[in-house]
Structures are given as C-alpha cells and as structure tokens.
C-alpha cells in the first residue's frame, strides 16, 4: 500500500506527512503530526470534538480525508492561544468553570471562535444552535453558553 504525500499548513506553519488514503484529517493531525488536542468522540461528525478550521470553514476533522488537506490551511486548538497568552474564550471558559472533564472543550473553543468571528453579537439561541454540533455530556451546556456570550460582550467592549 503506497502512502500519499501531503503538504499543508497547520496553525500557520508548513507541515508535511505521509498518510494512507483512507486516513482522515483527524487521524493525520493526531497520529502523524502529534496534535492530539482534536479528539475523536464519534468519527461520524456527530460530536464536534474534532472541530478544526479548514480553509477558513468550521469542519469536523473526522469528515475530511487527510489527502484533501494538500495545499489547504488547517487551524486547530493548538494554535488558538497566542504566545504566552490565552484567547479570551479560553480565559473565560476557565473563569466560569465552563468545562468539567474537558474532552469536548477544544472542539467547543474552536467552534465558538468561528462563531464570534462571523457574528460578534450572537444571542443565546444563536449560540446554542451554532454549537449544536458540539456534544458535551458533563456541563448541561449552561456555563459554556454563558462563557461564549460573555466573551462576545467583552470583545465588543461592553
């Protein structure tokens, strides 16, 4: 079985790997590049734990073939914090206790960041529907939704 050579950009840096054509982007990120912040919760696009940005669009990395990443731009949770500084969403999640076990948290953060970039002033319903593809089994979502709404307000300077 010959492997596919893929050259891509991950969190702003050029990345290269060899992969089987059956491998998903999630497999490649985790197993080829050692970026294990994106989690596999279902491998069917139903839980959102592997949410990443793919050429500027929010996607589940488990539903993208690794080979598709050639020449594309991938952004993962590992690239969310600046140098020595957390993203405001990350800070707010910590401040409000918006995580328990934490395994869904990277996916929520990537998805929430995408939301605020597109809609800086979402209401509660918009946040809930935008994040409906991210399953959390611990928190009942309450503190997560609050954290996103409060971060949005902070970023708007309110």
């Amino acid at each position, binding site marked *: *079985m010959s492997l596919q050579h893929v050259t891509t950009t991950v969190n702003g840096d050029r990345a290269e790997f060899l992969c*089987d054509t*059956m491998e998903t982007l999630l497999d490649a990120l*985790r*197993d080829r590049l*050692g*970026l*294990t*912040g*994106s*989690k*596999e*919760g*279902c*491998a*069917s696009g*139903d*839980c959102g*734990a592997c949410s990443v940005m793919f050429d500027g669009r929010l996607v589940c990395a488990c539903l993208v073939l690794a080979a598709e990443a050639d020449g594309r731009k991938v952004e*993962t*949770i*590992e690239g*969310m*914090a600046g140098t020595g500084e*957390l993203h405001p969403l*990350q800070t707010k*999640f*910590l*401040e*409000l*206790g918006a*995580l*328990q*076990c*934490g*395994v*869904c*948290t*990277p996916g929520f*953060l990537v998805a929430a960041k995408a939301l605020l970039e597109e809609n800086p002033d979402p209401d*509660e*319903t918009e*946040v*809930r*529907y935008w*994040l*409906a*593809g*991210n*399953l959390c*089994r*611990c*928190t*009942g*979502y*309450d*503190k*997560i*939704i*609050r954290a996103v709404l409060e971060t949005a307000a902070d970023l708007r300077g309110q």
Partner: protein
Amino acid sequence: MELEFTTRTTFDKVGTRPPRPDGTDKVTGRALYGADLAGADMLVGKVLRSPHAHARILAIDTSRARALPGVKAVVTRDDFPDIGPEGTVKGEVEENLWDVARNVMARDKALYEGHAVAAVAATSTAVARQALKLIDITWQVLPHVTDVDEAMRPGAPLVHEDMITAGMDPAPEEPSNIAEYTRIEMGDIEAGFAAADVVVEQTFRTEAAHQGYIEPHACVASASEDGVAELWCCTQGHFSVRDMCANILGMDLASLRVTSSEIGGGFGGKTTVFLEPVALLLSRQSGRPVKMTMSRDEVFRASGPTSSTSITARIGATRDGRITACDASFRYQGGAFAGSPVGYGAVCGMAPYDCPNVDLHCYDVVVNRPKAAAYRAPGAPMAAFAIESLLDEIACKLDIDPVELRLRNAVKEGASSVYGPTFGTIGFVECLEAARDHPSLEAAPGPNQARGIAAGFWPNYGGQTSVTVNVNNDGTVLVSLGTPDIGGSRASMCLMAAEELQIPYERVKAIIADTSALGHNDTTGGSRVTHSAGLATIAASRKVIDTMKRRAAAVWDIDVDAVVWDQGCVRPSGANAGDHEPLTFDAIAAMAPATGGPIAGHAEINAEGAGASFAVHVCDLEVDPETGRVTVLRYLAVQDAGKAIHPDYVEGQYQGGVAQGIGWALNEEYIYGSDGILQNPGFLDYRIPVASDLPMIDTVIVEVPNPGHPYGVRGVGETPIVPPLAAVANAVSRAIGQRMTETPMSPPRILAAIDQAP
C-alpha cells in the same frame, strides 16, 4: 479514623471560584486523555465482536489472521487463565471477577451482540482491521432475549443455563434469568393500604440509557519480559483497574503499574475494565506496547449502559396527603451478568418519604445485552420515575400542591429510612422550601405548557483514600491524589488544602498519582471524592501543620505545646512561651532542609460519615399537541451540597445531571431489533441533548452541613440525575392530561398518549 473535628461554618477560601489547576491544559489541547499517548514501536489492538445476540462458540481459528504480515499477536479465550468462580481476589475489587473476566472475553458463549471474542495487535489500524476479518469462528446461534419482562417469563431463552435465583426461600429448582430476588419490608402493608383514602397504581417502563461520555475507552499497555507491566488508561479508578487486570491475568499487584490519563467523562461507565486486560495480553504476546481504543459504536455495543426496567408500584395516602403505604415490584435487567442496581433503586425511590409501611420486591434479571455498568446514582432515576409519578398522581387526585405534598411526607433528622438506619442531619425540607420559594415558580404555564416537580435521593459514600501533601522549600504545596478527577476535584482539593494551611490557593497544585505512588484509592464514584479525598487532604494538611509547629518549636527551643498555628504562621502560644517573631509557612518551608528534612503530610483513610443528599427539581415545558414534541422551557435544580467547596463545579454537577436526565426522559434509549442487534449504536440515533435542546438550568445550592465532614461536605454528583425522569414526566402528563409511564417520552409516544386521552 484519627481525624478529630467539629464541622466548621466560616471559610476563607472554600466557597470561592478560582480557576482549576488543570484548566489551562484543557483549554489549549495539551491535556492528555486515554487515546492521546503514543509510544515508540507501538502496535494497534482491535477487538472482534460477536455479531449475534446469543451464540455458542464452537471453534475459533486464528491461523489465517496470524499469517497476515504485520499481525504481531492474537488473543482469544484460550489465552486467559481460568480464575474459577470464586477467583483469587487480591486488592479491593468488589465486582464479581468471574463475570468481569467473561465480559472482557467470551468463553463458551457470546452473551450479547458486541461481546468480545478475539483480539489482534498489528502494525497499523488497517492491518488490524484486515486481521479481524481473517478470524474464523464457528457459531451455533441460540435463541435470545433482550426485554426484562420477557426474560422473566417461564420458557424464556436462558442466558446462563445453570442460574438459580439467589435470595428465594426455598431456592427454586429450575434455572431462570432471575439472578437474585430481594424483599424489603417495613411495617404492616395491609394495614397501611387499609388506612389510605386514595390508592394509585401503575406499571412503568424505562429503556436503557448510556452514560454517553464523549471520550471512548482507550488504553496503552506495555508488558515487559520480566512479568512487569505498565498500563495507561482513562478510568474512574486506576487502582481498581490494576486489581481487576492483575486478578484476571494472574499477576501480582506490584507487577502492574497503572496511570490514569485525563478522563473524558465517566458517569460510572469507566469503573470497570473492557480493553485493559486484553491490551496487556496482546502486549505480553507481542513484546511491544499496544494501544487500544473503542470506536463510538463499540462504546454503545460493548461497554456498560444502565438497566432497562419494568416497575409496578402502588402508593396509598390519606385525604390530607399523608403516605400510608407503598408496595412495588422492581424488575431491572443488568445485561448478560448478574448485578443490576435494583436494590439501590428500590431504597432510593422511597427514601425521601416517611412511609411506615413498605413492601418492595426486587428482581435482578439477566438478558442478552451488554453487562450494565454503574450510571450516576445507579438504579435510582428509574425508581424515582415510578414513585414520584405516583406522588404526582396523588397530588392531582387530592388537589394538593406537589411541593406541599412532599413537605407533608418529607424525611427529617431522626426519621427511620427505608433502608434501615435513622437519618442524621439532612436537608430535604430545606430543598423543598427553597424550590417552593424560588422566583421561577411565579411564571404561570401557558397553553400546552405545564410544570412538573420531583425529588431525588442518593445516600453517598466515603471509602478508601490515600493523599500526600508535600511542602516544597519555596512554600508551594503539591497534593497527590489517587482519585481520577472527572469534574474539577483537583480544584476542590487545592481549596481545602489552602484553607487548612492558610496559604494562597495559587500556591497549591494537585496531581493524580499512579498506583505505585500512593496507597489504595477506591474508584471515583458514588459521589465520594470531595467528601473522602477532602477528608484525607484535610487530615494530611493537619499533619503538615503539626510538623511545622514542631519545627518552629525546635528552632525556638521551646516545647511544641507552647506554639500555636494561627493565620498561616506558627506563633508562641503566649507571653511566657518567649518573645519570638511568628514564623510564616514559607519561612518554615525554607528552613526544612536544615530542621529535619522535607515536610509532608499524608493520610490513608477509610472515609466514613458520608452525608445523604436530596434534590428537588422543577421542570416547565411545552408539548406540541400535533407532533408530540417537547420543548423544555425552564428548569430548576435545588440540592443540598452540605458545603459547596467550589460552587462552579457543584452547579456544573447539578446542570450536567439535569441534562442527562432530560435526555433519558425524552429521547435516549437502546433500540433492539427482533434479531437482538442494537440498532442505534451512535450519537446520530442515540440522541443525547444538544445545546439547542436545553434552556439555561437554574440551580440553588442548599447548604445543610454534613456533620461527618470537617467542612460539612456532602457528595453532589449522583443526586441530580435522580429527579429529572419524573420531573419531565409529571410536566408532560399535566400538559396533555394523560399519565406518561414509559421513557423515553419520544414524540411518537407522546402523540399516541394524546390520542388516547379521553
């Protein structure tokens, strides 16, 4: 236990909401969970699972798989030692190891669809998958049964041909699928019903739910030639994993070191082993590290969901709403092995109420489904569904407010509980009053809307715990715990250590140590950790203080009785102790090397004194009368926490339990076809609530201190999932004017009930 205390009520740090010590790693993706470890030369392990609900395994031929290039190990039932029905139990395992060993790998029969029958380790996932296809099994398919009531009928297919019901006098002569019968009796049931003015009776059914943790089971095993092995896995209890694996594989406890990874949710489902013994065997056979992860589909088919149940209950009450009698039959299936939580369910259902006459019959039933594991307050939500629904029916019949009805019957300190002992200090009445007085009850339900109220109870427990508190020379403190942190317990332990040591919270860090670093720790579960690990952390911190007092006294050359611990400093106890400047915590820490070496405290305890926890939930919802769809509009969870150490994570437990309970009530279920095959082993059709399904979940933390803990802590994790099935059912029933008696209350079921309404 040697720790002497009076429960304190004023705190400096406890009750605040600082960020958790493990938080930054979790928001940046650095935290390592079960599937995140990679080792050099690591193999991939995969399990072959039964496609049949019930089948005898006549032969297993692995020769074609072994011949496939890249396959490094293949294990089947033949590779497991026979531990015998009594087994040699080392360590603190409480599960029946004979059953666990057979659940991990099928022996003569596959007992459910998904039951493991063989496993391989190979150089890649693709090769491992290919190898599974090359294992040839000769099956003799047998009749199966997956429904609890059908399994109890005479003539039902027998899951275990030789199972004789325990607990019956005289013992039955014929085998059946009833593993155990238990009867719980108090008072005079006939007199109780004779005294009743109103009697309600119903049969209720609940379908099995899965814990639904987002992280599938995963582990990495590495066995070396000298018989020593290491295991990394996501678990609620790595000491129990060590004990179970060692016993199943015939190893010494000291030869197996288990490290718990970060854990992506458990809710009781990660209290046993599935992959771990198999991975150890594959590693032993191949001489290489082996990683195994379950797919989501395997999690549903082959880990441990909760029981499905069938409950017939009858409650009598006087005209003024005093409960006089309750009799009930609880039928819980525990999957393919004995051990459903029927007994807990039965006592938890009635525990909140002062009912003098009780007669409960409990049946633990086996069926061709995966072995049930614990799920948050095991057994209690289903029983509460039945009991709290009947109380709602009584409230409707007598036209009494449902909170008022419960207040009239609520257990108080000194009441005798249905499971025996007299209640100590409890906060049920306080919870009911807080719910009654909450502003969210002021809104009157609109058309097609209604409000449902239900209560819940969980006894909580303590258990064995070892904690070490190490003081560094710079005055920072490290707490080593042996209880995996599922929901923020490291933050709570740091708060309690900081409170005792009177140092800033930021100066305390906590880790989960592996099995070689601490004495035995019971599993994280039963809502025990904040109570028991908290007790141990406090005890260990007090030993640190004792040592610090001795060191300061020695430096001052005065008697240790002449110093006191005050505001994070050691001071002379009075004028005649001499004139010494107080020594701060940091100063004594800095002097440690020169005053006798490292300062540490440790505590190895068996925590007792767990305080029972009660909750009252209020659910407002709307039913679409044309489609049967339910929209939850408002939800209030009131619960006694004793003392909330870190209120964010207490609220989080309430909200999380509510969300799981709402999911179970409305949509979550195991759906079996007539072929005994699970039809919805994925998050698409096993419908756990998504963010847009739920409203904000209001919480009220009631604090009636538990006298069994120095800070008054009660466990909080289990109780919040007990009331929601009933709270939702009571609301739906009131909205449509028809009593709902089955979960899930899916749109088709509600529409059918509406169509049947008079």
